[in-house]
């Protein structure tokens, strides 16, 4: 069926373009190759005629040996189904590609990221400047010829470790000692971040007809920095807000304070080494991060996972969803000013689930539990009993209690209903994912739209709410916990005994050349891993489509016209984790 769908799209697209657009026929690669000047045409046809209305992922790949930069787009239909993968190539020197922001506003931050890290210039982008690195940074760190401070070798394992491992502290003995590069004429004393001045200037523009009666209105606008110190306990994140009185005129998120160039690290690593690094993306949901990465690499390797391992994977992913939603609800209430009592009630049960994670994987949060083709350890019987007890008794009781505690609370309703509204059309256009998308009335869930693992076996509903406000984003999390519990009950009922790993898991896997996009419905939204292999032990490209990052694209839109006090509530309702946002 999948082949059929693919062929259909191929025919439709080639009919539109008269054979101008070719399928990508490099080894193991999928999708269409299109010249940059036809990209906008193709995207318009895909969106308006073929119904690919959701831009999931946009990223660049640096093909250094071929002196080319490639931009890869993953488009989906909001009714579900496989991806339309579009690739466009441009010379590596001065790479220029038309911007898709006008068609898919959700491309905004992703294009900025590709510019920042790879130096791909998106023509027509309204605000193309650095997003993760600081404004004065020199170079584009994801380029293959860029070397980080304390650079040792292009690829791990490093030769100095064995067999002549005379330990050194890396910061003392590397050729590129402190190789931070500064722009010419840089002086720390006199430098003011140009980007910041631009940021404020762009925000302070008063529209000509602001008065509404033809005369310009004489009001002062105030720019307020919320953050970067934990504006609302979520992490180091900053929001530059322009206010007219107490009303928000514009809001720009500023991020990157926790940036560690996760993708560069991953491209130095071997495949298996990346597994524990994915734990550190969204550190609340490490189990399901593992799942997304494992799926991408398993797709490339073409290996199957044993039944029991699949069931345990689903069990862990759903427990993770419960953990995350309990956390999100608790801390949303924190943001609303109900300081810590609701949060601690909510995360009480999280503790018990983390004990389960610890007993199966060895760590509460950095689980590192999945392997390609299976799992690291089997699920012990006593832990299974604990899970059963939790799912059958304790967790339903907790969710009921939270429901009683919060849902009808007048203050929560007053602060939530009608606040931070994102309409259905906006949610799709901004590539919002997960609870944000579904609270706006789009019943899109990767578990249903393009089932992975064994999700097609389970009976569950895709939770959906229609108002798209803070209150609905709270409610949808309660709904989703109920659905997760429903899935867990089926997992507990059906889980078989047997193997948990296909073959022996070697310490260095062989991954055939090609590309794969593995995506899972993470608690915060669609988490995607785009992996390009060139057949060597290390991935050539590894990109994370981080839901927390892309969901923030719509933050400004949600906050406009709201009061300043609502910003924190709206941010809390998006539920971001900075480990994943900044990567």
């Amino acid at each position: 069926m999948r082949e059929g769908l693919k062929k259909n799209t191929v025919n439709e697209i080639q009919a539109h373009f008269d054979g101008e657009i070719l399928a990508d026929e490099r080894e193991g690669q999928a999708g269409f190759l299109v010249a940059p000047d036809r990209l906008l045409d193709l995207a318009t046809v895909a969106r308006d005629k073929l119904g690919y209305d959701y831009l999931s992922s946009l990223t660049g790949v640096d093909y250094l040996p071929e002196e080319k930069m490639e931009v890869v787009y993953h488009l989906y239909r909001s009714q579900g189904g496989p991806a339309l993968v579009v690739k466009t190539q441009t010379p590596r020197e001065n790479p220029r590609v038309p911007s898709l922001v006008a068609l898919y506003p959700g491309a905004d931050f992703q294009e900025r990221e590709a510019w920042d890290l790879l130096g791909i210039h998106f023509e027509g982008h309204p605000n193309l400047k650095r997003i993760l690195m600081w404004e004065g940074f020199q170079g584009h760190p994801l380029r293959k010829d860029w070397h980080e401070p304390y650079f040792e070798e292009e690829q791990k394992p490093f030769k100095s470790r064995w067999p002549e491992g005379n330990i050194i502290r890396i910061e003392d003995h590397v050729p590129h000692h402190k190789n931070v590069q500064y722009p010419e004429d840089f002086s720390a004393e006199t430098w003011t971040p140009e980007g910041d001045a631009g940021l404020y200037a762009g925000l302070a523009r008063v529209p000509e007809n602001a008065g509404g009666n033809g005369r310009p209105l004489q009001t002062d606008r105030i720019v307020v920095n919320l953050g970067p110190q934990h504006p609302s306990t979520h992490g180091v994140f900053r929001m530059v807000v322009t206010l007219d009185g107490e009303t928000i005129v514009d809001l720009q998120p500023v991020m990157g304070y926790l940036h560690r160039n996760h993708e560069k690290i991953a491209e130095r690593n071997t495949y298996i080494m990346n597994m524990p690094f994915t734990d550190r993306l969204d550190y609340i949901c490490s189990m399901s991060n593992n799942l997304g990465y494992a799926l991408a690499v398993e797709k490339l390797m073409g290996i199957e996972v044993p039944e029991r391992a699949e069931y345990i994977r689903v069990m862990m992913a759903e427990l993770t969803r419960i953990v995350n939603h309990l956390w999100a609800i608790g801390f949303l209430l924190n943001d609303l000013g109900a300081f810590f009592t609701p949060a601690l009630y909510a995360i009480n049960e999280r503790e018990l689930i983390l004990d389960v994670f610890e007993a199966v994987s060895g760590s509460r949060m950095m689980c590192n539990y999945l392997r390609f083709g299976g799992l690291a350890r089997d699920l012990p019987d006593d832990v299974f009993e604990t899970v059963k007890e939790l799912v059958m008794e304790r967790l339903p009781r907790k969710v009921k209690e939270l429901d009683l505690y919060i849902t009808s609370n007048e203050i929560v309703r007053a602060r939530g209903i009608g606040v931070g509204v994102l309409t259905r059309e906006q949610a799709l256009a901004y590539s919002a994912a997960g609870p944000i998308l579904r609270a706006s009335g789009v019943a899109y869930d990767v578990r249903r739209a393009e089932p992975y693992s064994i999700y097609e076996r389970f009976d569950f509903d895709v939770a959906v709410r229609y108002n798209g406000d803070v209150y609905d984003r709270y409610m949808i999390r309660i709904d989703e916990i109920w659905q997760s519990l429903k899935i867990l009950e089926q997992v507990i009922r059906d889980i078989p005994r047997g193997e948990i790993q296909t073959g022996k898991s070697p310490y260095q896997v062989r991954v055939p050349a090609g590309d794969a996009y593995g995506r899972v419905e993470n608690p915060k939204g669609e988490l995607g891993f785009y992996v390009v292999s060139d057949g060597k032990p290390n991935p050539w490209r590894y990109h994370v489509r981080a839901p927390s990052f892309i969901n923030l694209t719509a933050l400004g839109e949600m906050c406009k016209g709201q009061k300043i006090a609502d910003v924190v509530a709206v941010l809390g309702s998006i539920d971001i984790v900075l480990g994943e946002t900044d990567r």
Partner: protein
Amino acid sequence: MVGEGLVKGLCVTLKHFIGTYIDDIRWLGRRYYRDDALQIRQSPKARGIFTVQYPEEKLPVPEAFRYIPFLIYEVAEDGTMEDRCTSCGICAKVCPPQCIWIERSNDPETGRPIPAPTNFYIDIDICMNCGLCAEFCPFDAIKMDHDYELASYKRVENHIFDKTRLSRPVDYYRSIRPSDYALEEAARAEKEAAKAARRRGGSS
């Protein structure tokens, strides 16, 4: 009615508040500082307050728990210590943050590598406790520890563990991971038996 939701919520808080006292009364002063009470307080049967009075009370860690690796040595009958490690370097090659450094030396007479490592270092500031080294070691020579209280004042002096600091007897391993140990020993015995059978078959 306006305020109904608030009152309901306050009732939940009140229930939690009273619940803690009820649980205290139920345990009659034996709720804290006792291992059996702690076990129940941290299980799905727990009621009342969840907090643990660390460091007076410590949560027991599950067998799978992993923290900084250690090296296993066997103690022979005559008291000599023999490393299980053969310095094959797989742990150093699979280590994601590359914090393992192994020094292997050659026999001065034959010029061939000596199997046991001359030295073995782990930079515990860099170790991310992922456990891949222990998972992929073919000789069961490196395992993850349970001891997590490693804070010290001197980073430079104390945070690079050398072979002496890393080595632990096999008995220690058995004490912290009894079921893993049993499984590995069974597998080893089976292998030995198969080898012996083959040898017998070959000689006869």
